[in-house]
C-alpha cells in the first residue's frame, strides 16, 4: 500500500465515510459500544488507574529528558546479548538497512508482525520493489494487505471491513481453495487465514516485528499481541529484525511493567494482551529454537527534532488508540480520511510533522477541541493544545485560506472597537432578523451554506442584549 499522503483530501475522504452506512454502523459498534465501554470496564478493575497515569506520564517525561543516555545503555545491552543495533535518521535509511539485512539473508519472503513504523517508512513497497515478498501476519493487516488498503485504526486496522468483504477477499486471493466453500461465519474465515499463514510463518526467511517498549537495563525489546503472530514472526525465521523508534525506551523492567498495566487496559479493556513477549539478543548457544541473528533498527525520523519543540509531549504516546476511540470526529470519519498512517487526535499531531503542515493542515483543523482525547490519554498528553499549536503554524503560513483570514481580521477589528461593533452589529442583526420574517430559523441563508446544509440556523431573537440593556430592559 502506497504511503503517499492524502491528507489534503480529508474533506472528500470524510464525506465518503459519512455516506457509507455500513461503515457508520461498524464505527458505532467498534467505538461507542466497543472500545469505549471496554476501557471503562478495564479501568474499573484497577482502582489505582489514575495514579498509574501520573506515574506513566512522569516516567515518560524522565526518559525524554535523558533519552540519549538510555539509548546508549540500551544499545550496549543489546550488543552484549548478541544483537546488532542499527541507527536510521529517516525513512530512507531505515528501508536501506532492512533491505540490506534481507538481501544478506537471501530472503525471498519476510513475515511481518504489526508495525506502525513499517507503515511510516513505507517498508512493504520497498521490499516488493526489490523482489522480496512481505507477508502481513496480524489478521487485520493481512486482510488489508490482500485488499491493498491502508489501515483505518492503529490497533484494529481492518475494523472498517465487514465479514462479507473479508470472505470476498479470501475467495479472490486464496485461489487454490474451492471457490464455493462456505465462508459465512467468522470462525471459518479465521481458520482459513490461520491455515494460509502457517506455512508462510514457517518458511519465512526473515521476520520483522515492531517493538512497543525497549528496556535499557537489559537490552530487551518487547511486543504486544493477542494473536501470537508477532511471536511466530520473531521466533521462527533465522533472522529477526525489530523495527522501532527512539522514544520507546524505558529504564528498567519495572518501568515497562508500569506501562503494560495501562496499555491493554486502556486500548481494549483487557488486563493484558494475550502475549507480551520480551526478546533479548539472539538465540543462546544452548537454545533449541530462536533466531540466529537479531537486529534492532532504531528510527529517528524527526523525533529528535520533536523533542526540542512545542510538540514534545506527543513523544509520550504509547500507541494505545484511546484518543482515536473517543474522538467524535474520527467516530464519524474513520481512519482513511486522515490520509496517512496515523489517524485521529494523535495522528493529527504527528502527521504534519512527517508529511509537512502544507499537506496535512486539515488534520489539526478537524477537531472540535472537545478534549475527550486528553481526558482518556493514559500518559496525559495535552492533545488539543498540540493541535492548536499546529493551527498557529498553519495560520502563520497562510494555509487557512484568505476568506477565513479576512473574516477573522474583520471580526477582530470590529470587536476591538466596541462602539463601531455595536453600530455594525445592531444593523446586521436587524437585517438578519428582517430576513427571517418571524420564522425561528433559516433553512437557507446566503453565505451560511455550510451550516444550513445539515441543520437550520436559528434566527436572532431580536435587538441585541447591549442595546436593550442600555434602554433599561432588565
Amino acid at each position: 500500500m502506497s504511503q503517499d499522503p492524502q491528507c489534503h483530501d480529508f474533506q472528500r475522504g470524510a464525506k465518503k465515510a459519512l455516506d457509507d452506512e455500513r461503515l457508520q454502523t461498524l464505527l458505532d459498534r467498534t467505538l461507542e459500544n466497543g472500545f469505549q465501554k471496554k476501557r471503562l470496564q478495564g479501568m474499573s478493575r484497577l482502582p489505582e488507574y489514575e495514579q498509574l497515569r501520573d506515574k506513566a506520564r512522569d516516567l515518560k517525561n524522565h526518559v525524554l529528558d535523558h533519552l540519549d543516555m538510555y539509548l546508549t545503555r540500551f544499545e550496549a545491552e543489546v550488543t552484549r546479548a548478541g544483537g546488532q543495533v542499527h541507527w536510521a535518521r529517516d525513512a530512507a535509511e531505515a528501508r536501506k538497512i532492512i533491505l540490506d539485512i534481507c538481501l544478506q539473508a537471501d530472503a525471498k519472503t519476510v513475515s511481518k508482525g504489526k508495525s506502525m513504523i513499517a507503515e511510516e517508512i513505507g517498508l512493504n513497497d520497498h521490499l516488493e520493489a526489490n523482489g522480496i515478498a512481505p507477508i502481513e501476519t496480524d489478521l487485520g493487516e493481512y486482510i488489508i494487505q490482500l485488499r491493498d488498503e491502508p489501515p483505518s485504526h492503529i490497533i484494529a486496522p481492518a475494523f472498517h471491513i465487514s465479514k462479507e468483504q473479508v470472505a470476498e477477499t479470501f475467495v479472490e486471493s486464496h485461489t487454490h481453495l474451492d471457490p464455493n466453500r462456505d465462508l459465512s461465519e467468522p470462525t471459518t474465515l479465521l481458520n482459513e487465514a490461520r491455515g494460509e499463514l502457517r506455512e508462510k510463518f514457517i518458511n519465512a526467511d526473515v521476520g520483522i516485528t515492531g517493538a512497543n517498549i525497549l528496556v535499557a537495563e537489559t537490552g530487551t525489546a518487547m511486543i504486544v499481541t493477542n494473536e501470537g503472530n508477532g511471536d511466530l514472526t520473531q521466533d521462527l525465521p533465522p533472522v529477526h529484525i525489530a523495527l522501532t523508534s527512539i522514544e520507546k525506551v524505558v529504564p528498567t523492567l519495572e518501568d515497562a511493567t508500569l506501562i503494560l498495566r495501562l496499555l491493554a487496559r486502556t486500548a481494549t479493556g483487557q488486563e493484558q494482551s494475550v502475549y507480551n513477549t520480551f526478546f533479548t539478543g539472539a538465540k543462546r548457544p544452548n537454545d533449541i529454537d530462536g533466531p540466529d541473528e537479531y537486529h534492532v533498527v532504531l528510527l529517528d525520523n524527526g523525533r529528535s527534532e520533536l523533542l526540542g519543540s512545542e510538540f514534545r509531549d506527543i513523544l509520550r504516546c504509547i500507541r494505545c488508540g484511546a484518543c482515536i476511540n473517543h474522538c467524535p470526529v474520527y467516530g464519524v470519519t474513520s481512519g482513511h480520511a486522515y490520509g496517512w498512517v496515523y489517524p485521529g487526535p494523535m495522528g493529527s499531531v504527528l502527521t504534519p510533522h512527517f508529511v509537512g503542515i502544507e499537506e496535512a493542515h486539515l488534520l489539526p483543523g478537524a477537531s472540535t477541541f472537545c478534549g475527550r482525547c486528553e481526558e482518556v490519554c493514559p500518559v496525559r498528553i495535552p492533545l488539543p493544545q498540540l493541535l492548536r499549536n499546529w493551527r498557529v503554524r498553519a495560520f502563520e503560513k497562510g494555509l487557512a485560506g484568505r476568506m477565513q483570514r479576512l473574516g477573522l481580521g474583520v471580526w477582530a477589528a470590529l470587536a476591538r472597537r466596541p462602539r463601531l461593533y455595536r453600530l455594525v452589529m445592531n444593523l446586521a442583526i436587524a437585517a438578519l432578523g428582517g430576513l427571517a420574517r418571524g420564522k425561528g430559523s433559516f433553512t437557507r441563508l446566503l453565505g451560511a451554506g455550510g451550516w444550513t446544509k445539515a441543520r437550520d440556523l436559528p434566527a436572532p431573537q431580536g435587538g441585541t442584549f447591549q442595546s436593550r440593556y442600555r434602554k433599561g430592559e432588565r
Partner: protein
Amino acid sequence: MTDRNLPKPHVGLFVTCLADLMRPSVGFAALRLLARAGAEVVVPDSQTCCGQPAYNSGDTKNARALAKAVIEAFADFQHVVVPSGSCAGQIVHHYPKLFADDDAWRAKAEDMAARTFELTTYLAEHLDLNDTGAVFDGSVTYHDSCAGLRELGVKKQPRHLLATVDGLTLNELEETEACCGFGGLFSIKYPDVSGAIVDKKADRVVAAKSDLLLGGDLGCLMNMAGKLKRRGSNVRVFHIAELLANMTDGPAIGEDRDA
C-alpha cells in the same frame, strides 16, 4: 456562604457575543438569577468577544488583542460571571497561556482567570443559590458542553440548580458527555462532519423523550436546535439560565414566534 451582612459581591457580567447578538434573553436571565442570589451586577459596555474563534484558528495576534480588551474591560470587578462554559474556559485557561511570554499581561490574565466563573458554577457554589423560584411542570434533558465540562468541571452544578425547580423531571441523555459537533468555526469549516456528529447527538436527545433540551452554551444549543428543527422534532431548546429564570414562555432557540 452568603451572609446577608456581608456586602454583595460586585460582579461583572460577560454576556458573550452569541448571547448579545443572537439571544439576549440569556443575558437577562443571568442578570435575574444573579440578582436573586444576592450579587450586584454591572454589564460593562466595552465588552464584545472573548477571542476564542481567533484563538482556535491559530490567529494568536488577534486572540491576544481581544483578550487584552476583555481583561481591561473587567479589571475592576470582584468577580466576572459568564453564561457559557467555552467563553469562561477561554478566559480561565487560555488567557494566561496567550501571555506566556509577557510577564505583565500574564499577571493580569491570571488575576482575571482567578475571578472568572461560569454562571451555574457561580450560582451553585459561590452564591449557594438553593431557591431559584423556578417552576417547570415538565421534563428536561441536559447536554454537558465540552469546554465547561472538561476545562471547568461543570457537571454537578447545573443539575444541582435543576433539582431546585418545582415540578421538573430531569432525564439524563445517553452519552451526555459526547460532543455535539459545534466546535465553534469547526461547524462551518467541516460542515459535513459537524452535521454527522450533531445528528448522533440529536438521536440521543430525541430518545430522552423530554419536553426541553437545556445546556450552558449557546453555540452548542444553536447547533443542536438547528438539527432538531431540521428533523421536525418538537423538543424545545433553551439555555439553562432561561429555565431557571422562568423565561421559557417565549420562543425557544430556533422556534417560530407563533409556535
